Every structure is written in C-alpha cells, then in structure tokens.
C-alpha cells in the first residue's frame, strides 16, 4: 500500500528515510492526505514554464487541515531533511502553479485549511486560513450582507488572499497593493514554533488586525516571497463598499501614446482623484480577453504583424492602449472626480472616455469593471487562448510611473519578444508612484521550437532590462535564482544568514527567491 510509484526522491534523501517519513506523514495526516502515486501527483505538475517538467516534479504531496498538523509536518521534514514547498490555493499560474520550485520537494498543500476565521464589518478586517478563496469570501460577504469590498488578482475565483499576498500580488481596487493591506500573520517556523507578527504575540490582544507594526522590528515583509516560515493565518483590510462605484475606460488610438497616458494618469493617481490600481492594457491583452484568438487572423508562426494588430483594434473597437480606472464614493464625490478626469483628458487632447452604460456589458470592459469592484470572474484567462498551448511566463519589471520610462520599457520588451517570434501582450498596473509592467510571455508549450524560443526570450528580457537598471518584482520558479542575481550579493548574504538562523536544515522551500543554504552566500 505504501509503495512509492512516483520514483522521485527529495534531493539528498535516502529512499529508506523517505519511506520512513511517508509513514510518519500517514500517521499524522491520514493515508488519504499523503499522495505519492504519479496519477495523484499529476495535478501538481501542470506547469506553464518552458523547462522540462522533471525539474518541478514533487516526490509527494501532503495536505494538512490544522496548524498542529503543519507543525507536525515541519518536524518530520526536519527529522529526515525533507524539503517542503508550501502552496495555499496553488494557482500561481505563470509563476510556477502548484509545482515545487525544485525537483523532489514535497508539496505541502494547505487548500483544505479553508476557514474564514473572522470578518469585522465595522473595522473592515478579515482573518483567514490559507485555503480560503476570494470566491468563498465573496459568497460569504454576499450571504451575510456585509458591505465590504474585496481586492483580488484576476484569477479571483480560484486564488486566495493568503497565497496572493505571500507572493506580493496585486489587484485593481484602491486596496490593490495587497501586501500594503496585510495586517497580522501567523507563521509556523522551521523549528515548529508559532510566531505571530505585529500585535499578535500579546496575550489577550485584539488589535492584531488593525495595527501592523507592533513593537520592535516589524518582520512581516521578510516572510513574503521567502522561505522563512509557513503562513497559517493572514489578516488584511477590506474597503467599505462605497455607495457608488463608477468604472471607466479611456481608449487611446496609437501605441506611441503610452508616454502621454502615464503623464496624464500620474497626477490624478497621486492626488487620489483616481484611487485604484489603474490599468493601462495593450491591444493584444484586450483582444484576448474578449475572446479573440490569433488563429482567427493568421496561421503564420512568429510575431503577429502590426498591420494585423491594427486590424484587430479596429474590428473589436479597442484602443492601442486602454486605461481602466474606477471612481468610488457618494454620487457627489464621484461626479466631482469624474469632472476632474474629464478636464484633464480635455487638456491632453486625446483619448476617448467610455462609461459602463456605453460599454453595455461587453468584454473586456465588463470583467475590468468586476475586478475594480470586487466581483470574482476568470475572464482574463482568455489570454491563454491567444496563442494557445498552455505556455505562459509573467515578465513583470518595475518601472517609475513616468511616461518616458514606460515608453522605453514597452519599446524594449516588444522588440525582444518579436525578435523571438512572440508577441507583446502587456499591461501597466499603476501603483502609487510605480508601475508593475506586467507582460505575459505567451507561447505554445506543446511546440518544442516555440518553447525553446520562449525560454531564450525570457533570458534576454531579464538580461537586457537588467543592463538598463530594471528588474522584475516576482518571477516563475524556473528563473528565481537568475532574478536573485539582479538584486546584488549583499542582499543574498543577509538572506542566507537569516535562513541559516531560522531554518538550519534548509527544509522550507529551498530555492524560493534564490534563498537556499546550498547557494554559497555565507556571510
């Protein structure tokens, strides 16, 4: 019964030790929560990165349902030096999905820990377990008529606040920078101890979800995009649902307009006239999310010619760039702000403003409106049908919110993508002073040639951007070591020292963000 048919072992672990560990996992979690057969593990290996799936094949997956079980898993992993990669809802598409970062790591899958522990309607706070999806939260708020609004990434319905925030993801409301809205974490450390950040360690405290900093060092950030602890509870803030939300789109005709658009948006965003994480989406992004596929226009391989893109823009009534913003408040507030936006647009002398009524329920306006008002949907997965074949890597360099910078990044990215026969499918997400320039490097993963080109392309994107002082904010697991190099060696030595101190057996997700006791970055 306990036969291991997957034939993958954790690195450096003897088969007999692995078997012994599996027995202990079964005793702790129940046999049905310890998956080792290839057929059971197949869902963990649906990656979208170009590398061979063998690199990311787990030796086992275990599911825990309580904090005590997570502690138990960590103890067993320490005993046998078994590296463990944690996922919450495990839908980290384009960044590694639910597959472990390195071959042979076991996956600790926390999807079954799915309790909404607390919602405070007055203070607008939530405390959730790892497996709680945004859809579940949304349904809960609806059912109980709680007037709070969610902010989530586009895969809303199947993603989680905890997983998204631990990877420092973004959404589209005024609370779109999710880590900024995080307040209080509970972590199981590598030694099995439980650590609560902020006010969470104070006996009898009730301010854990309202005051972030606590006392002394504030360590929350250290646990995100990292491997120093397993998060088992996450607190975060929810925005009061405004009486009126008014999503708008502004279409711009030319791809050379990007610089002017950014200069137009920045002051409005900084002054909070437009308070949400505005998006400036390129034409292919728009086309794909209203279910347009490349094959409808051409069967030629390679980059899609600009002439076709112009045709699509015309056929589908899209802009070359499409700005999505939302105004929130009372009717009066929204009206005042809308007039300011209209005024600024008039000054700019280009751009066509579209209201929800004018859009009339069509895509992509409809799903953008939902993202900006906290209604779950999965419309953005239309991106994967543009070229088809299930290959996707996010290339997400950070940029200043400055027109000239965005223009430069756009030009450079497009040129490199096209050189490798791929398309620029990108959007800018406006933070406050920054842009997440998010580009979906889409390719057909079933086509070996295209897969190789995608890999070469991604390397070149990282290299050429780095030469100009740009780096990405997050990356898929195949490139995590490469990106760590961009951020300098001192950072890596500090991270190594922390790893040594907190996880001397190197069991928690070694390799995450390039942090691994085997990487040679001793202080």
């Amino acid at each position, binding site marked *: 019964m306990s036969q291991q048919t997957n034939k993958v072992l954790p690195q450096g672990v003897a088969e007999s030790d692995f078997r012994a560990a599996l027995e202990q996992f079964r005793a702790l979690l129940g046999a049905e929560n310890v998956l080792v057969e290839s057929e*059971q593990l*197949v*869902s*963990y*290996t*649906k990656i979208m990165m170009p590398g061979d799936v063998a690199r990311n094949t787990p030796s086992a*997956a275990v599911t825990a349902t309580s904090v005590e079980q997570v502690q138990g898993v960590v103890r067993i992993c320490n005993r046998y030096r078994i590296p463990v990669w944690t996922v919450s*809802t*495990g*839908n980290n*598409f384009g960044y590694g999905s*639910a597959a472990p970062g390195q071959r042979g790591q076991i996956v600790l899958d926390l*999807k*079954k820990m*799915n*309790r*909404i*522990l*607390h*919602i*405070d*309607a*007055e203070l607008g706070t939530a405390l959730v377990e790892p*497996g*709680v*999806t945004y*859809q*579940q939260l949304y*349904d809960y708020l609806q059912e*109980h*008529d*709680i*007037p709070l609004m969610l902010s989530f990434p586009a895969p809303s*319905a*199947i993603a989680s606040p905890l997983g998204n925030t631990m990877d420092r993801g973004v959404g589209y409301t005024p609370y779109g920078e999710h880590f900024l809205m995080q307040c209080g974490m509970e972590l199981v450390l590598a030694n099995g101890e439980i650590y609560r950040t902020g006010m969470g360690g104070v006996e009898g405290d009730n301010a854990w979800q309202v005051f972030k900093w606590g006392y002394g060092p504030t360590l929350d950030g250290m646990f995100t995009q990292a491997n120093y602890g397993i998060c088992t509870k996450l607190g975060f803030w929810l925005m*009061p*649902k*405004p*009486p*009126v*939300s*008014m*999503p708008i789109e502004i279409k711009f005709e030319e791809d050379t307009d990007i610089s002017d658009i950014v200069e137009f948006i920045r002051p409005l965003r900084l002054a909070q006239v437009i308070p949400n994480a505005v998006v400036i989406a390129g034409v292919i992004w728009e086309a794909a999310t*209203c*279910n*347009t596929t490349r094959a409808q226009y051409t069967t030629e391989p390679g980059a899609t010619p600009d002439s076709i893109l112009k045709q699509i823009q015309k056929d589908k009534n899209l802009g070359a760039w499409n700005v999505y913003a939302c105004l929130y408040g*009372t*009717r009066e507030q929204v009206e005042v702000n809308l007039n300011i936006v209209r005024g600024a647009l008039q000054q700019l002398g280009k751009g066509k403003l579209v209201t929800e009524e004018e859009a*009339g*329920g*069509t*895509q992509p306006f*409809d799903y953008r*409106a*939902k993202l900006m008002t906290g*209604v779950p*949907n*999965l419309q953005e*997965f239309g991106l994967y049908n543009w070229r088809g074949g*299930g290959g996707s890597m996010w290339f997400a360099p950070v940029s200043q919110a400055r027109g000239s910078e965005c223009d430069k990044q756009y030009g450079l990215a497009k040129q490199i993508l096209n050189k490798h026969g791929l398309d620029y499918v990108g959007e800018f997400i406006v933070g406050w002073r920054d842009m997440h320039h998010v580009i979906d490097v889409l390719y057909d993963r079933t086509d070996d040639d295209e897969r190789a080109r995608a890999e070469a392309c991604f390397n070149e994107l990282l290299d050429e951007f780095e030469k100009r002082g740009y780096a990405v904010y997050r990356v898929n697991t195949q490139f995590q070591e490469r990106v760590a190099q961009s951020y300098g060696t001192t950072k890596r030595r500090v991270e190594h020292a922390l790893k040594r101190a907190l996880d001397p057996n190197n069991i928690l997700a070694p390799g995450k963000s390039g942090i691994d006791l085997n990487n040679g970055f001793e202080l």
Partner: protein
Amino acid sequence: MMTTTKPQPLRQLLLGCALLLSATAAVAESNRADGEQVYTRVCGHCHEAGVGPVIKGRNLPPSYITAIVRHGFRAMPAFRSAFIDDASLQAVAEYVGNSPAPGNKGKGKE
C-alpha cells in the same frame, strides 16, 4: 447593476453592519459534493464565458471530464484533489455530462 449600490448615507451603511457582526465567525467552505455548485463557482467562470469551450450538452463522458480536470489540458489549468475533492469532481463531471447545452443567456462578448 453591481457597480451602483443605492446611494445611502455612509453613516446608515455603517450602522447597519454594526448590528450584524462583531463576533468571530469561523466558516469553512462546505464540502458537499454538489455538481452544479462546483460548476457555477469554478468551471462556469470559464466555460460559460467563452474562455473555455462549451462543455454542457455534449454528453461528454464523466471519465473524460475528470481526467481533463486532474491533468489540465493546454490552456486549461489542472485542479488538485485538495481543491476539488474526488466526490465533488465526480458530481460535477456527471452534472456536466448530463446537462443540456447552456442557453444563449450570456452577455454580448464583443
């Protein structure tokens, strides 16, 4: 529509919820094997929106559906048993396999 809740004074909104809540509420996602519910909350977001092909009304064999869901298929993500347990998957596969094609009630796409 979803974007315009009735203009109410903020104070009124806040008072309304003070009554509703303050106690800790721990709620877990129900694990009922309700095929329709899984379809609506997961599959339908893509398969009723033109992102995935129509799968209702095609008499697709449940075993084919469950295999696609567990393995994923090109642009379609894989769903683990921790995400959709075996009983729920079987239920949704049977629900889809036995359903008539969806009516054309969706919103205009373009």
